[in-house]
């Protein structure tokens, strides 16, 4: 649905997006994850034919950006960052305006307006002036505007920023629902959002993709082995060695006296063995907690400003 080849954007000699290539199949919900300034918005603006790329090729829903940017825009519903709206218009006036400029056939305008208002749950505020709406409603009005022409591809730039937790949940539900009949590309720097909503994640740092995969796969692929946090009372100097001797355990480190992180093979579960060892040696087991690396860890590891790591990973991804 979205095909990107060697996409690059340079502002005043400063590369913002470097040599990006990826493919998003129809119906996928894809998350763009990255710190501020990573180039997420720039990529999205190029995919929506707002910014011309410096290099590379973009094809959305079969339309090449170079050949027909206006046709490409017809296939994309775009919700820019911070949801720009016209505050002086009424919701219905705005939806009608969007329907007109997005070329919704005249006969269908009414139906489309009703449909998106219902989907985005803004039915009660349709007569209201946009400037008087709460942030959550404005977000949904923006989304309704992006959906009005039934585009096959939706591009949402930080759709949940500035919302309260309830509103965030509702917008996420809406996005999940939209994902059933749209190809969705959304950007965010909120990690749980990606884990909940997206089937696939790109982690972007300084204009390149440093990781690409399902949230789960990324976790294991990039963080390495799962681990247990073990807290023992009365353990002496040999505890590290003893733990290391257990089947399936790959590495043990003592963070502070009595606190151990026990890494084990993904298919092994040494919890019973740890318990048995403690009983056998007469140690008191204070804690035994499976430690699952969150996407947060992946994110921090990938995007902390260490050029080498990021570059290495970018290389890995491009080889894969």
């Amino acid at each position: 649905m979205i095909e990107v080849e060697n996409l690059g954007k340079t502002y005043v000699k400063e590369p913002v997006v470097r040599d990006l290539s990826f493919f998003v199949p129809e119906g996928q919900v894809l998350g763009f994850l990255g710190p501020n300034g990573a180039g997420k918005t720039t990529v999205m603006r190029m995919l929506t034919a707002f910014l011309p790329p410096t290099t590379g090729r973009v094809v959305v829903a079969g339309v090449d950006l170079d050949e027909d940017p206006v046709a490409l825009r017809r296939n994309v519903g775009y919700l820019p960052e911070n949801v720009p709206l016209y505050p002086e218009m009424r919701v219905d006036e705005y939806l009608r305006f969007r329907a007109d400029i997005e070329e919704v056939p005249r006969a269908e305008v009414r139906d489309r307006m009703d449909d998106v208002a219902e989907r985005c749950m803004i039915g009660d505020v349709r007569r209201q002036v946009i400037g008087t709406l709460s942030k959550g409603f404005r977000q949904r009005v923006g989304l309704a505007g992006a959906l009005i022409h039934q585009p096959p591809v939706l591009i949402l730039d930080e759709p949940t920023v500035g919302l309260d937790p309830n509103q965030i949940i509702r917008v996420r539900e809406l996005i999940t629902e939209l994902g059933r009949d749209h190809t969705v590309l959304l950007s965010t720097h909120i990690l749980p959002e990606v884990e909940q909503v997206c089937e696939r994640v790109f982690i972007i740092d300084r204009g390149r993709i440093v990781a690409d995969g399902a949230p789960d796969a990324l976790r294991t692929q990039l963080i390495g082995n799962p681990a247990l946090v073990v807290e023992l009372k009365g353990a002496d100097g040999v505890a590290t060695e003893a733990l290391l001797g257990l089947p399936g355990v790959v590495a043990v480190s003592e963070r502070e006296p009595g606190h151990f992180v026990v890494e084990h093979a993904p298919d092994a579960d040494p919890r019973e063995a740890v318990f048995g060892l403690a009983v056998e040696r007469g140690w008191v087991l204070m804690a035994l907690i499976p430690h699952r690396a969150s996407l947060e860890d992946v994110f921090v590891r990938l995007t902390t400003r260490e050029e080498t790591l990021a570059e290495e990973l970018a290389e890995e991804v491009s080889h894969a």
Partner: protein
Amino acid sequence: MRKTWAIVRRELIAYFSSPLAYVVLAAFLLMQGYIFYLLVSFLNNPQTQAMTPLRLFFGGTIFFWLFLLFVVPVITMRLIAEERRSGTIEVLLTSPVTEAQVVVGKFAAAMLFYIALWLPTVLYVLVLMRHSEIDLGPVLAGYVGVLLLGFLFLAVGTFASTLTDNQLIAAIIAFAVMVALFSIGLVEQLIMSSGLKAVLGHMNLWTQMDDFAKGIVDTRHVVYQLSVGILFLFLAAKSLEVKKWR
């Protein structure tokens, strides 16, 4: 056409939902009414030479120009600068709308507002008609002149509004360019070289407007004002295309 019209309609909603529009309308009418009153009482004095009040009304005094030079930037400053400031330009230019359609729609809305501004002055003509003979030819020509000047100046203002995301700066740029276009005619008298003088003479907006007010619709004036206006609209569309800013 439908998309351009949608932009025009949206812009009109924006005009009439802001207090600025009403302030401009009220101030414009107040000043025009006062000037009209002054002109009529001045011309009622038997010692003044014979002139028609409407000829003075249409460009015959500096007041006419002061209004135009101040009011037009106020009408146009918001057009695109505000879209850029608020980010709605991104919505506009990621829908299947071309830059030219945006510029034409915005400009047409400004033109309609400008016409709405002048519409009540038709009353003055009606008032005069009740009290004296009026030659309608020059009056119509005067309105043609007002529309053409409006076309030219509003196009300048639309262009200025594409250059920045700050309305005030857009207004100042529009004002500066309009003053430059206007003062070409005033510079003319200072030039010695006869060739240049002739060229500048043709670009003198004051005398062009005076011709219209006299009832002369000179096609050279019409062509000059329309073509310069279209040039600025073209520049506005190009500027919007080039300004693929961050």
